[in-house]
C-alpha cells in the first residue's frame, strides 16, 4: 500500500499556488504547474512499479553458524525477478537484542537492478544457543519522498544454533589434573584392562590370567588382576533464564557454563561416561533424553546446549516442572547431577529439587556462578562507577545468602571462581568413583 507523506501536502500546496497564479495572473506559469503535476504522477507511478517489484522479490538466505568461536555470517540475497528496478528501498533487519552485529548495517538503503540482485551480508558475534534473526523489512520511496510504501516483510526470519566450543586449556588442565592426582583410578579389582595386582589362583580363574613366570620361580599358581574400570552417569541441568545472560557478550554465566560443560562432556565422553543435559528457563524445560554413552552422549549434550535460548516471557524458572520432566529419563542407578544456576530468586524451589534428587540416591551439586563476577564491563562514567558497584554488591549479597541457605540444607554448592569450576566438577566425579 502506498501512502503520501507530509512532504506531499507541502508539494501540493505549492502546486495549487502555481496553478492559481497561472489561472488568475500569469498564464506563463502553466508549464511549471503542468510539470509539477506531471512529476507527482511520475513519482506515484514509479513507486507503484517499485512496489510490484518488491512484492515479487525472491529471497535467498544462507546462514553459516557453527561454534561460538567463529562469527555467524548471514547472507540475504534479494533477487529482483521483474523488469523494473528497485531504486530506493529502505531496509531494516530485526534480530534478538542480545546479538551483536559486528559487520554489516542493520538498516540502510538498497538498490536491486532489474533482473538483478542485491546482497546483504550480516556478521554477528556468535553466542551459544538458539537465536532468531529476522524479519527483514523493506519500505520503498520515490526520489522526492512524496510517497512511501507501507513496510513490507520480505523475509520472516530464521533461527540458527551455535554450539559451545570446548576450551582446549580447560581440557588439558583436566587431563593433567586427573593423571597427576590419580583420580581416574578406581583402585578396586574387577573388569578392565589396566593392571591392578597379582593374587593367588582360585578355582574358576581363567587360565590365560595365570602368571607363568611366578609359577616357574615359586612353583605356585598366581593370576593377575585388572583394575575395575570406573564409569559414571552425569546429568547437567542448566538454568538459561534471563539473569544467566548477565555480563559482556560471550562472557555471561550461561555461556561460560556452556563452555565448561562442553569441555567436561568431552572429557567424560573420552572416559566413556553416560551423559545427558537439561535446559531450564522461564518458558519451560528441555531434556536431551536418557543419558547416552561416549560420543553419543557428548553429541546429545552439545545439541541440547545449542538449544539454549532466551525467554522474554515468564517471571521465574519453575524448578518443580524440571523434576517432573527429567524423572522419566533418569536411570535407576546413582548418577551425578550438576545444576548450573544462580541461587536466587527462588532458592526454596531449587533446594526442593536438589533435595528430591538426592533422596532418589543421586549426587547433586549446585554450580553457582556469582553474577557480579561476570559483570565486568559496565561502561558507566567514573563518577557513577562507585554507586553501581555498591548496588552490585547488594545483588551479590543476595546470591551469597542463597549459597549459604543451600549449604545449610546440606547441598553441595560449587561457588568458585570461573577458572576453577571445571576442575572442581571433575574432582567431584572422580573422587566419588
Amino acid at each position: 500500500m502506498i501512502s503520501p507523506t507530509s512532504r506531499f501536502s507541502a508539494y501540493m500546496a505549492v502546486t495549487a499556488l502555481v496553478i492559481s497564479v497561472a489561472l488568475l495572473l500569469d498564464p506563463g506559469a502553466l508549464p511549471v504547474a503542468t510539470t509539477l503535476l506531471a512529476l507527482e504522477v511520475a513519482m506515484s507511478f514509479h513507486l507503484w512499479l517499485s512496489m510490484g517489484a518488491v512484492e515479487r522479490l525472491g529471497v535467498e538466505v544462507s546462514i553459516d553458524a557453527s561454534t561460538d568461536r567463529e562469527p555467524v555470517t548471514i547472507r540475504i540475497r534479494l533477487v529482483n525477478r521483474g523488469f523494473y528496478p528497485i531504486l530506493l528501498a529502505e531496509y531494516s533487519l530485526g534480530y534478538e537484542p542480545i546479538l551483536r552485529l559486528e559487520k554489516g548495517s542493520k538498516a540502510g538503503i538498497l538498490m536491486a537492478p532489474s533482473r538483478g540482485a542485491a546482497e546483504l551480508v550480516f556478521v554477528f558475534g556468535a553466542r551459544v544457543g538458539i537465536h532468531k534473526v529476522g524479519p527483514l523489512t523493506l519500505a520503498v520511496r520515490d526520489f522526492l519522498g512524496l510517497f512511501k510504501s507501507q513496510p513490507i516483510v520480505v523475509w520472516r526470519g530464521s533461527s540458527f544454533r551455535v554450539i559451545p566450543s570446548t576450551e582446549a586449556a580447560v581440557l588439558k588442565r583436566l587431563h593433567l589434573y586427573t593423571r597427576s592426582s590419580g583420580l581416574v583410578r578406581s583402585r578396586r579389582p574387577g573388569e578392565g584392562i589396566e593392571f591392578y595386582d597379582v593374587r593367588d589362583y582360585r578355582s574358576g580363574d581363567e587360565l590365560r590370567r595365570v602368571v607363568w613366570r611366578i609359577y616357574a620361580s615359586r612353583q605356585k599358581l598366581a593370576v593377575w588382576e585388572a583394575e575395575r574400570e570406573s564409569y559414571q552417569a552425569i546429568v547437567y541441568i542448566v538454568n538459561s533464564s534471563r539473569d544467566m545472560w548477565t555480563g559482556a557478550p560471550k562472557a555471561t554465566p550461561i555461556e561460560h557454563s556452556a563452555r565448561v560443560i562442553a569441555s567436561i562432556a568431552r572429557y567424560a565422553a573420552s572416559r566413556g561416561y553416560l551423559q545427558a543435559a537439561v535446559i531450564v528457563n522461564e518458558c519451560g524445560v528441555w531434556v536431551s533424553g536418557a543419558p547416552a554413552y561416549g560420543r553419543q552422549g557428548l553429541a546429545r549434550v552439545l545439541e541440547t546446549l545449542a538449544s539454549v535460548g532466551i525467554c522474554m516471557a515468564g517471571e521465574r524458572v519453575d524448578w518443580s516442572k524440571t523434576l517432573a520432566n527429567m524423572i522419566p529419563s533418569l536411570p535407576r542407578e546413582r548418577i551425578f547431577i550438576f545444576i548450573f544456576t544462580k541461587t536466587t530468586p527462588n532458592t526454596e524451589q531449587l533446594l526442593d529439587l536438589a533435595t528430591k534428587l538426592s533422596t532418589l540416591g543421586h549426587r547433586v551439586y549446585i554450580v553457582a556462578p556469582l553474577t557480579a563476577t561476570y559483570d565486568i564491563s559496565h561502561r558507566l562514567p567514573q563518577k557513577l562507577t562507585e554507586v553501581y558497584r555498591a548496588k552490585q554488591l547488594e545483588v551479590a549479597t543476595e546470591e551469597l545468602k542463597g549459597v549459604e541457605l543451600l549449604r545449610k540444607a546440606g547441598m553441595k554448592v560449587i561457588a568458585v571462581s570461573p577458572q576453577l569450576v571445571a576442575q572442581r566438577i571433575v574432582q567431584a566425579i572422580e573422587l566419588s568413583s
Partner: protein
Amino acid sequence: MSMQLKKGPSQRAFVSTALIALLIAVGLLALVEKGPVASGIPIGASPLNPMALGTSHLVDLAARNYSTLVAYSFRELGNVDGGLCVYFTISPELPYTVKEAKTVISILRERCSKLKVFVADESTYSNPLLQVLNSSIRIDGNRIYIAIATGVKEVSSGLALIALNLSSPYPPAEIIVRDIHRLVLDKASSVSGGIPTGQAYTYSDREILCLVNSSGDVYRCASTFDIASKEVVNGVNVFVIGDGSILLNQVLASNKSEYLAFARDLLSYLCEDSPHCTIIFDAMHYPSISPRDILSNPSYSIQKLVRDPTTLLYTTISILAVLLHPSLWLPPLILGLSSLLTVLVTGFVSAIIIFIFTLVIYRILMSGARTSRDYRLPEQVEEEIGVFAELRKTIASGKAELSKQDFVALCQTLDTLLKFYSGSGLWSEYALNVLAELIGDEKKAYRELQWVLKMYGKAIGRGRLSLFVSWGRAVKRLMGLVEEVGERISERLGVSII
C-alpha cells in the same frame, strides 16, 4: 522468542538545519549558473544520441582503443592535443558554413601534427568542409536507387526512353578500407572526385542503378556509381562515403557483424593503429529537442523521438533530468514568487482571491489523500539483559544515589562474607578476630569495626552520633572494606565472591 524493535535514540545533529538549507541554496544557485545537464535531447546521427539513429556506439567503439573527444562546441576542439587527429562528421543535420568549416580545420591544423577528415554523409551539408580543405571530392546529394527496366516508353528522334521501376533505395556496395567490405547502403548518395574506393552495384544483371535528384526525378542510370572516395590534399587525408547510415547505432548493434567489422577496420585504418591517435566526433551540427519544445508540442516530439521502448525510456529519463535541473524551474519559480509577492503587497483583494483559489485547488488535489509522517523504519536496538541491565539504566540516568539504605545493605554484605568465611557474622563476638585475621592488622580491624557498627546504628536510627554524615562517602568507605575482605577470602579459599 520475542523480538524488540525500538526507535533509535534521538541524537543532536552536528550540522544545523539552517546550515544545510544554506548549502542547498548555494548548490541550487551553482547548478543554475552551470546551466542544464544538456540543452535538450540530441536527435539524428549525433554522437551524443544513444538511440537507434545516433552514433554513440561508434564513439564507444573508438574509445576502447583511442582517445576520443565529442566536440559540441569550438571550445572542445581547443582541448585537442595530439599527434594524429581524425575528425569525424556523420550525416550532419545542420549544414556546415564555410566559416565554421574554416574554424574547425584551422583549430585542428594548429593542435594536431597530422590531420585526417572522415565524412559519411548522404546530403550536401558537409561539402563546405571539403571545399575548405581544397578537396576535389563532393557529395552529390542525390539518392541511388535500384531500378528495373520495364520496357521502352517512347521512341523519338532516334532516342529510346526506357520505362523504369525504382524498386529499392538499398543498393549493395563494396568499400575498400584495408579489407573489402560488402555492405548494403541506405538512401546513399554518389560522390565525385578523388580516388574512388567504393562503388554501389546491383544484385543482378536485370537491375540498374539510377540517380534521383531532390525533386524525385531520375537523371542518370548506370550499372555502378562511386559512393566512396579518398585523397590527400595539403597533407590532409580526406575519406568520404556517401552514406552515414552504415555507422548508426541500430546498424552497429544489429546481428549483422559486417557493419561492426567495417567500423573497426575504418577506425583502425584512419588511426593507423596508433594509440596516440585522437578521434574527434562532430556534435555541433545536430539539433536537440528541449523539454520546453516537447511540452509545447508533444505530438511532434513523440513522433520524432519515440520509436521503441528503449528510446521511450531514454527520452523519459532525459526529460526528467532536464525537468529536475534547477536551471529550468528555479528562475521561473523565483520570478513567480517575486510577482506573487508584488501582487500580495500591491493588491490585497487579488491576494485574498488567489489565496482562496489556492485553497480550493489544494482541497481538490488533496481529496482522498491521507498523508502520514515519513519516519524511517525502526532499527533493532542491541540490549543487555540480566540482573544488572535495569540497574545500569537507572544509574546512567542519574536517578540513583548512595544513601543510608545502601550502607545498611553493605553491612549485610560484610556480614554474609564473614559468615561465608568463618560462620561468624558482623555482629558476633568473634567478628573482630575474623576481620583482624583477614585484614592482617588488628588495630585497623578494630577501628573499622567500631566505625561500621556506629554508622550502622545511625543508619537504622538507633544511634545519634555522628551528627552530620555524608552517606555517599560512608558507603564508599565501607565498600572499600567489603572489597578488601572479599579479596582476602578469595585468596584463601580460591573462591571469587565479589
